[in-house]
């Protein structure tokens, strides 16, 4: 580690920056998916379960087929199915969407542990990264600039969703269902069907985020793979005011916070490893305390959303 000592504490910000890009990707996909779902007027708290379940499926499919991209696709489809289950149950009268989310979170995690038992040992093919740091001779910087393709897809997806929500027919219908179910009904649209599609699309994106966990970073399957990234991403959507582009920036922020613990460990600071590991949760809570208010409805909140009503 000669280079680490010559860089001194610069290792930490570099590792945080690299970590921000690496760790933020699941946050990004889950929050973009949740953003879509919530804009249609429903909240899916089950994405934590979706994340774990699809990480397991993605890893399994990649292991069996040898193709990590097939794993990503399978993970997305898994997410869409779980999203569909959420939407169908919530479509029944008098069923509470928050509670169904909690149930699906527990179910998804349980099912993933059940089916994933044989996948803890074997090594699956993982996703490739593009090397943007080839010019650098400093290994830490080189590592930080290895960027996964999924992150780049997320970078393109965020502004694309902003545009789609704002300017397409599909986006307008979705937002109408989120702002006033009655208005959407009056136009002759089925609110349940709109929300079914939004929740399934959201689940698909969250599933892709899950595949990133098992197929790139950390790049294996175990039962401690996701600990709260899914739920943090749901809270992040509130902070991002239901705007996909803000979801992108806040995901980077959260990724950086999550990378702080390992970065400090790399310079032999081990005190408080677990506390720094919980940094994203502290950050989420702090942000929610600062940005929420009991007196006014939040700017940008879909009017039909149960969580802000």
């Amino acid at each position, binding site marked *: 580690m000669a280079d680490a000592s010559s860089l001194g504490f610069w290792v930490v910000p570099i590792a945080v920056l690299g970590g921000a890009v690496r760790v933020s990707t699941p946050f990004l996909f889950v929050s973009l998916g949740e953003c879509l779902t919530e804009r249609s007027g429903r909240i899916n*708290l089950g994405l934590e379960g979706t994340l774990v379940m699809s990480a397991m499926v993605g890893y399994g499919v990649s292991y069996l087929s040898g193709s990590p991209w097939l794993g990503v696709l399978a993970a997305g489809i898994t997410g869409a199915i779980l999203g569909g*289950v959420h939407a169908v*149950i919530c479509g*029944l*009268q*008098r*069923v*509470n*969407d*928050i*509670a*169904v989310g*909690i*149930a*699906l979170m*527990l*179910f*998804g*995690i*349980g*099912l993933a*542990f*059940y089916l994933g*038992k044989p996948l803890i040992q074997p090594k699956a093919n993982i996703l490739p990264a593009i090397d943007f740091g080839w010019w650098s001779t400093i290994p830490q910087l080189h590592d930080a600039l290895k960027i996964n393709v999924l992150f780049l897809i997320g970078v393109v997806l965020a502004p694309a969703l902003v545009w789609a929500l704002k300017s397409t027919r599909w986006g307008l219908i979705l937002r109408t269902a989120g702002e006033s179910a009655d208005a959407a009904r009056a136009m002759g649209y089925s609110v349940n069907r709109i929300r079914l599609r939004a929740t399934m699309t959201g689940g698909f994106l969250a599933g892709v985020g899950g595949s990133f966990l098992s197929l790139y970073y950390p790049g294996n399957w175990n039962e401690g793979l996701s*600990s*709260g990234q899914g*739920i*943090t991403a*749901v*809270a992040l959507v*509130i902070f991002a005011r239901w705007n996909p582009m803000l979801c992108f920036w806040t995901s980077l922020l959260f990724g950086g916070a999550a990378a702080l613990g390992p970065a400090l460990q790399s310079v032999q600071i081990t*005190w*408080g*490893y*677990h*506390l720094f*590991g*919980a940094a994203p*949760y*502290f950050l*989420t*809570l702090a942000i*929610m*305390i600062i940005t*929420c*208010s*009991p*007196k006014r409805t939040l700017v940008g909140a879909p009017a039909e959303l*149960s*969580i*802000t*009503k």
Partner: protein
Amino acid sequence: MTFAIETKAIGGRLVGDRFGAAAELVALPVLAVVVALIVFGGFVALFGVNPLDLYGYMYRGAFGTFFSWQNTLTRAAPLILTALCTALPAQLGMVVIGGEGALVMGGLCATAAGLAVLGAPPLIVQLVMAIAGMLAGGLWIAFAGALRHYRGVNETISTLLLNYIAIAILNHLVEGAMRDPASLNKPSSYSIGDQNMIGLIPWLGVHWGILFGVIAAVLAYLLVFHTTFGLGARISGGNLRAAKVVGLPVGKLVLAMCFLGGACAGLAGMVEIAAVQERANANMAAGYGYTGILVAFLARQNPLACIPVAILLGGIGASGGLLQRRLGLPDASVLVLQGIIFIAVLASDTFYGRFKIFQTNSA
């Protein structure tokens, strides 16, 4: 919140048609559990396990022998208490899922307090531990209640985040300040000592924690349904505007209910330490907090109903070992079944008032 409205509708129907509605309140969750068991049977059949074997072993592992009853009741004790952590704030229409965090904080603070007064007589040590555990758990959830009331922070998300934070604090302390250097493989705190453990109920062989749970549930039931305080909470849960019109102190109700719920979960943490674990370590976060949420929903947030439901789910948990040994099912099969039950019971909400058989009196 739709949740609150739905409770109110059921409460309203109770007045006109008490028997039918009460029968419905019992019948629909039972039906949901039966449907969930059938679905789970189909699920394990996919893996070549005979569903009838499954049900047989589940019954034997949960309620079939004296020893399985002991195991079941030992698991039910913390479940009753963590269920109250969800059921009490639910009277105000809140969805609190922080039982796991409150249990961990309660157990951690109970251990710290117990270690601080280690020389005292065992009864004093246990009392100090119980008070410390309840205070810690209560304040932990009351914090989420305060955030909800004063800052409008959604309590479901905040309590879930607090679960992860509590586990991080636990790991931080048992690997640092509170660590017993002798605990090599699994970092743990110092032991509270054999003499300070709360023992077993003599002829039953189950620790006294189950009695704590039953007493807490009965007290919670009396509080919710037979005091003005409880009525005020239920009015606020049903209709916030009405509560404000009649001058109910909604903020105080929120804080008090959250504190009491959290205190119950904190007591569960204390019981886990003082009756089972003897020392604080990562074993504390065993998922009782999450199963407690399911208990509360299956009990329809009724504190008294939490007792039999906790025994049922404790039984399912207790049968896990037997399913693993005899049928080769992974230990996560209990989690899958719990998830299916949870989904089924929530979906059954839609059928309230739809079955004619329960409305014979009013028709």
